């Protein structure tokens, strides 16, 4: 297990460096933040002065070296737009995104798994076909369309749910949460559903496919022959054996969720990291964009690491494979 972690960590550092270089070069072509910070009435001299002070005149390698050095210390500088330390700006937005992704992932698993199993064991029934159809819509309709449709129905027509924002949040000092107030919970409903719909459908289809595969295998037939209860067969034996790809995909999907929040957060004016990133792109707020990419990169790597560890728990053969022991089956 330890070896696995060390191997992964070494990979991770390489990936982070590559991403930071990529991020950095992209931003060099994004344009000029000076234009946005100054009034159109500002003179050329004032523009030059600000460019110089922001360090935008340094050669690119120097800027990059500075950036990596500072990033290693968690120091991303000041946001041009918010005029606050970048880490503070991101820390302020992180809870909003985290809560949204958390609720969406729970929804995805809680709904996707049972529906997937149901569709597999009751394949051919009307209900299973309905679920199949809904899942088709879920994977093919983009999140922002679903978001706007939800707003249309639940905000404009029914006036049940707020169309935007996080509602009232409770500040715990280090964290702001929307879970503790009615308006905060109401505000979570539509964004998390529109964000989760794709994942629900995806997990459901994946589980269905895997289950059908597993149910055809001999040991399920033997289990049936032994007279085990249906629930035990499907959930303890069947589902467990198709968990490997589901765990991998769920890990990837959480990464995707963080990426997809960009769109969802814009539609619902959700004050999270994705929203921050889009705003930063518009303002060429280089420090925030760079920090955002680095943090998302780290989140991805961490999730991957966790997925790898879960593998070992679910399927001990993986650990042996990494150690190079040839005893795996």
């Amino acid at each position, binding site marked *: 297990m330890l070896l696995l972690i060390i191997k992964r960590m070494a990979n991770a550092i390489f990936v982070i460096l590559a991403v930071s270089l990529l991020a950095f070069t992209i931003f060099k072509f994004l344009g000029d933040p000076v234009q946005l910070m100054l009034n*159109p009435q500002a003179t050329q001299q004032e523009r030059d002065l600000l460019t110089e002070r922001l360090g935008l005149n340094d050669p690119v390698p120097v800027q990059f070296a500075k950036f990596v050095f500072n990033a290693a210390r968690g120091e991303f500088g000041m946001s041009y737009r918010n005029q606050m330390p970048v880490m503070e700006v991101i820390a302020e937005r992180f809870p909003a995104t985290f809560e949204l992704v958390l609720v969406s992932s729970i929804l995805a698993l809680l709904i996707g798994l049972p529906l997937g199993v149901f569709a597999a064991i009751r394949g051919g029934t009307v209900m299973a076909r309905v679920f199949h159809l809904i899942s088709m819509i879920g994977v093919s309709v983009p999140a922002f369309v679903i978001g706007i449709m939800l*707003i249309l129905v639940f*905000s404009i027509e029914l006036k049940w749910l707020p169309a935007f924002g996080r509602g009232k949040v409770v500040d715990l000092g280090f964290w702001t949460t929307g879970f503790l107030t009615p308006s905060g919970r109401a505000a979570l409903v539509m964004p998390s559903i529109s964000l989760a719909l794709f994942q629900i459908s995806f997990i459901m289809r994946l589980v269905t496919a895997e289950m059908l595969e597993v149910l055809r295998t001999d040991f399920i037939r033997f289990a049936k022959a032994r007279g085990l209860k249906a629930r035990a067969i499907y959930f303890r034996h069947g589902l467990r054996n198709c968990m490997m790809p589901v765990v991998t995909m769920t890990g990837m999907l959480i990464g995707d969720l963080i990426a997809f929040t960009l769109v969802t957060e814009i539609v619902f004016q959700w004050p999270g990291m994705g929203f921050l990133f889009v*705003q930063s792109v518009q303002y060429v707020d280089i420090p925030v964009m760079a920090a955002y990419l680095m943090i998302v990169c780290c989140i991805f790597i961490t999730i991957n690491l966790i997925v790898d560890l879960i593998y070992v728990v679910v399927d001990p053969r993986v650990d042996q494979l990494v150690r190079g022991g040839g005893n795996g089956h």
Partner: protein
Amino acid sequence: MMAWRSAALAAVLAGVLIAPAQAGTLRWAPQRDIVSMDPYSFGDTFTLSVLNHVYEGLVRYDSKLQIEPALAESWEVVNPTTWRFHLRKGVKFHDGADFTADDVLASLKRVSDPNSPLRGNLPSYVSSSKVDDYTVDIIVTENYPLLLNDLTNIHIFDQGWLVANKAEAPTDVAKGVEGYATSHANGTGPFKFISRKPDAETVFEVNPNWWDKRKHNVDRIVMTPITSAATRVAALISGEIDFTNQAPLQDIPRLEASSDLKVLSNSELRTIFFVMNQTPKAFESDVTDKNPLQDIKVRQALYHAIDADAIQKVVMAGLSRTTGSLVSPAIPGYVPELDKRLSYDPELAKKLLAEAGYPNGFSFSFLCRNTEFVNEEQICQAVSAMWARVGLRPNLNLGPTTIQDAKFDAGQFDVGTLGWANEPMIDSYSILVQVVHSKTGNAGVFNWGGWKDAEIDALIDKAGATVDRDERLALQAKALLRANELSMFIPVHQQPMAWATGANIESVLQLSDNKPRHWLTRMAE
């Protein structure tokens, strides 16, 4: 049965969750957030207009965009370099401190700091001194005529507050100096700053001790930016917000159809026009040995080929004001005679091109943004087609503002769009010195076409040192006339602005500077 009942219950519960309208609370959803609470941190017109609810300048614009006294009661020009301001007595900051001459000095010092991004808004400032507690002298460069215009947007801080919070110097992004004033505020204005969560919610409350007579009946302003146009419209229709200063043009018919909502639309100060690069060689063209755009016949051909009425009707939903003038009628220095467009005449355009030696047209790069001006992308697509009809071959290059403006700045274009509102000066001197004047010293920052005309430069320079308003405006009119004669630019229109209000709002004042002034807003009782 049970299921239905619990669903209905859930609906009732959820129904409560949409924040109900509260008397006296104005819920305002702009398209984007302000960038800071510090009025000296960003030269952004919208941010300044919001902060004007909390902070005030020595003078301000009245409901006809004329300058009127605010924190200064009166002023006089002592000599060509000295202006004397007599301050209003009995004004208090929101924290209770008295407003005196020291506050003005501290503010002027802060805004003119070498690190202050807003320095450019006060270009003529030299120094200031205190005569007594309620009199201040401001020294400017000789005969500078527009000090009052500039001062409308220099908001006054409380000196004691700045000192106590170590905020005497402006926020410095480059050095990582975070300012107290970025997230706190203490002004003299009609509203007090209460709280702020960037991109989510900023709250203001009425200042009961405001020096001016209260004309509004707003007790509280809750500003929640909504970026997505569809969501903003939805929030307005569902009654979650009362006001937006950015109603999407395409949704105006829908908003007007709703009985509760009102749409206020008009043309704003900003004029959109095309810039033509004057470099000796074209940037990207099949004419490689020279630049066709240096020929006035070619520039006029481009002008004659544009069907401005079609743009107004089709692209701008009939809401723009087609124009031949570089400045809007509301800007001092506007000349009605210059507001006549060259005719839309494709045949004449072809003829002019043939006369100039391009009977088969030529290709050129046409640079536009897709995020800056109202429907800019569609305008450029329409105009590209119009130019193609007379045999020209524009290569439309679209992209976000920050990328395109860098290309404009570097001269990497042949033809492109520019919009100028003359803010915050509200005077045609702004466009003349920044866009029309040749790039010399501090002038001509946005002279992207690289124009260099000695006659025009002389006129503008003279206007910049003429205190007498009529005399100065006459000089500026001459300069604009000259720009017209040379067909330096191709004006298109004054772009539209659209606000929308919900049932709770009785009236808001909309001026062509597109700035909400909620100290004049009336809500339904």
